[in-house]
């Protein structure tokens, strides 16, 4: 059982050669689903173990911790691990027809290979307890994702991929540099060890430089405002199922790194206190929410609209974190989960409805209700969840976010948060009006297969369920906050 953490990374790695050797489009799809299912099962077992018995370690090659590389599964890891792999599975299941139409035939097995590699990278980032390892896994997932993006059926897909590659690499090199500086100060790469030794290191200007570099790197990865440009471009040109996958995962990984590095490892030196960094980021994010919401209202392309909405929602998460209170962290964790589910659901519906993935404008979705009433009502529920109306999970997020803001020193920003959350209604309602009140006929006539229906319903159901029974999200988030971030207070 103690092998569980490494299995989660190793199992897909074992399947990848098989996929490449078989070179079969059919089998690569089936194999990826099998391995994802297995992986999710392992993660659930791990989650249970960690929840009841406490953190779980795995030392690679049995080298003890500060010298060897250690995998460490605590509640925070399991929470994100579960989320990411769950979304990956959902997207894989509904990917079949989409990949066949959007990706070149000869590349399909490579597409699934990259998908798995990307997911391995994500899992690795989450599980590793070695800060250099984190960089390596980050690069694995990034390289895989550049490939995934380049497979889009747009002429500009490759261009979007290489632009993301440059930006992503800059971020990665920043992180690498920061790791180097931290290493000079502490002489260790093990996260647990690092967090203890960093206190003794004198808070010199180079530590501050490291913090700044690291933060910029993470901000690029998680598309924090104002470094969100790549996200918009990427979401517009990548294969739509990849967009669906990334909407729930890749930016959330950025949030994970942010939490892990800044609030866990470096927490002992209060990294956000230098030059009022937290306040700066907070107000930048606040501005980001406003701007992204305004821009989202103006969009006529649905995926762009949802992408800007993602930027706004991510800013909410960052705002919650930058309150630097236990309540804020709890709120951010809740919102990470809820928003991932909702946004993946929204993108998934758009994805399965428009298999050709051409420019999907508001007019294209008109009349959806008469053609696919069930999909339309799912879409409605997810959109209402995005606004944060009661009985959806979005409401729970908003409740905790506003509560955290009220409890903090920044109570006055609650006005902006509430008003922008109301403004979400503006663009949401543009969609709803098109779906329910348009006389246009819904044009895209292809069939949606049963698996895709099930996936959409699972996500919609979860949105409702997590809005009513919050034991999982709220309970785990509170536990994580107490265990990982604020155990001293």
């Amino acid at each position: 059982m103690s092998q569980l953490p490494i299995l989660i990374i190793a199992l897909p790695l074992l399947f990848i050669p098989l996929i490449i050797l078989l070179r079969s489009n059919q089998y690569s799809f089936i194999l990826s689903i099998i391995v994802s299912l297995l992986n999710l099962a392992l993660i659930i077992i791990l989650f249970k173990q960690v929840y009841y018995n406490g953190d779980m370690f795995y030392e690679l090659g049995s080298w003890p911790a500060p010298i060897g590389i250690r995998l460490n599964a605590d509640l925070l890891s399991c929470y994100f691990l579960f989320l990411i792999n769950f979304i990956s599975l959902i997207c894989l299941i509904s990917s079949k027809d989409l990949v066949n139409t959007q990706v070149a035939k000869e590349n399909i097995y490579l597409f699934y290979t990259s998908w798995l590699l990307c997911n391995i990278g994500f899992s690795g980032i989450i599980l590793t307890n070695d800060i250099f390892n984190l960089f390596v896994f980050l690069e694995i997932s990034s390289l895989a994702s550049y490939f995934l993006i380049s497979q889009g059926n747009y002429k500009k897909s490759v261009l979007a991929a290489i632009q993301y590659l440059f930006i992503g690499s800059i971020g990665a090199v920043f992180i690498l540099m920061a790791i180097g500086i931290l290493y000079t100060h502490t002489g260790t790469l093990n996260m647990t060890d690092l967090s203890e030794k960093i206190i003794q290191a004198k808070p010199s200007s180079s530590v501050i430089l490291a913090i700044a570099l690291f933060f910029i790197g993470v901000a690029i990865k998680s598309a924090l405002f104002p470094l969100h440009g790549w996200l918009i471009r990427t979401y517009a040109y990548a294969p739509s199922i990849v967009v669906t996958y990334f909407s729930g995962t890749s930016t959330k990984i950025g949030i994970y790194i942010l939490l892990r590095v800044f609030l866990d490892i470096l927490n002992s030196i209060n990294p956000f206190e230098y030059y009022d960094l937290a306040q700066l980021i907070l107000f930048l994010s606040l501005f980001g929410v406003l701007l992204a919401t305004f821009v989202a209202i103006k969009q006529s392309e649905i995926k762009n609209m949802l992408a800007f909405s993602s930027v706004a929602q991510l800013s909410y998460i960052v705002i919650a974190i930058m309150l630097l209170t236990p309540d804020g962290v709890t709120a951010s964790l809740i919102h990470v989960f809820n928003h991932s589910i909702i946004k993946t659901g929204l993108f998934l519906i758009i994805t399965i409805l428009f298999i050709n993935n051409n420019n999907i404008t508001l007019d294209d979705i008109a009349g959806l209700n008469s053609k696919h009433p069930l999909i339309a009502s799912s879409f409605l529920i997810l959109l209402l969840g995005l606004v944060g109306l009661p009985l959806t999970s979005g409401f729970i997020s908003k409740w905790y976010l506003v509560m955290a803001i009220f409890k903090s020193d920044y109570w006055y920003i609650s006005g902006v948060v509430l008003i922008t959350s109301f403004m979400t209604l503006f663009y949401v309602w543009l969609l709803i009006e098109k779906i329910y009140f348009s006389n246009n006929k819904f044009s895209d006539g292809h069939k949606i297969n049963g698996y895709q229906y099930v996936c959409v319903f699972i996500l919609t159901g979860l949105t409702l369920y997590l809005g009513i029974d919050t034991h999982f999200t709220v309970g785990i988030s509170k536990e994580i906050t107490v265990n990982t971030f604020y155990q001293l207070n």
Partner: protein
Amino acid sequence: MIFILNMTLFLIGLFIIIRETNLIKKVIGLNIFQASVFIFYLIISKVDEGIPPILNQGYTIYSNPLPHVLILTAIVVSIATTSLALALIIKIKQKHNTIEEDELDET
């Protein structure tokens, strides 16, 4: 002094990536950028009067071997990035018949 030189290299690389429009030049910039960090790791691994970390009787001070190992990994990553970038650029050349970014944006 050597740190300043290193940082200069770092900034030159970054500048090239941001400033250049030719994709190949950008890749070169990226490589310079990454190389500067590799060199940074090598600098910090140097211990005063230390010798290369190979067991040798008569010497007690060795340079730190760990950053070298780390940088080996990072170089692999860097090569993977470069090769992927070059592959993507070939694709772009085939599709758009240009690799100048400002021209690409117009198409």
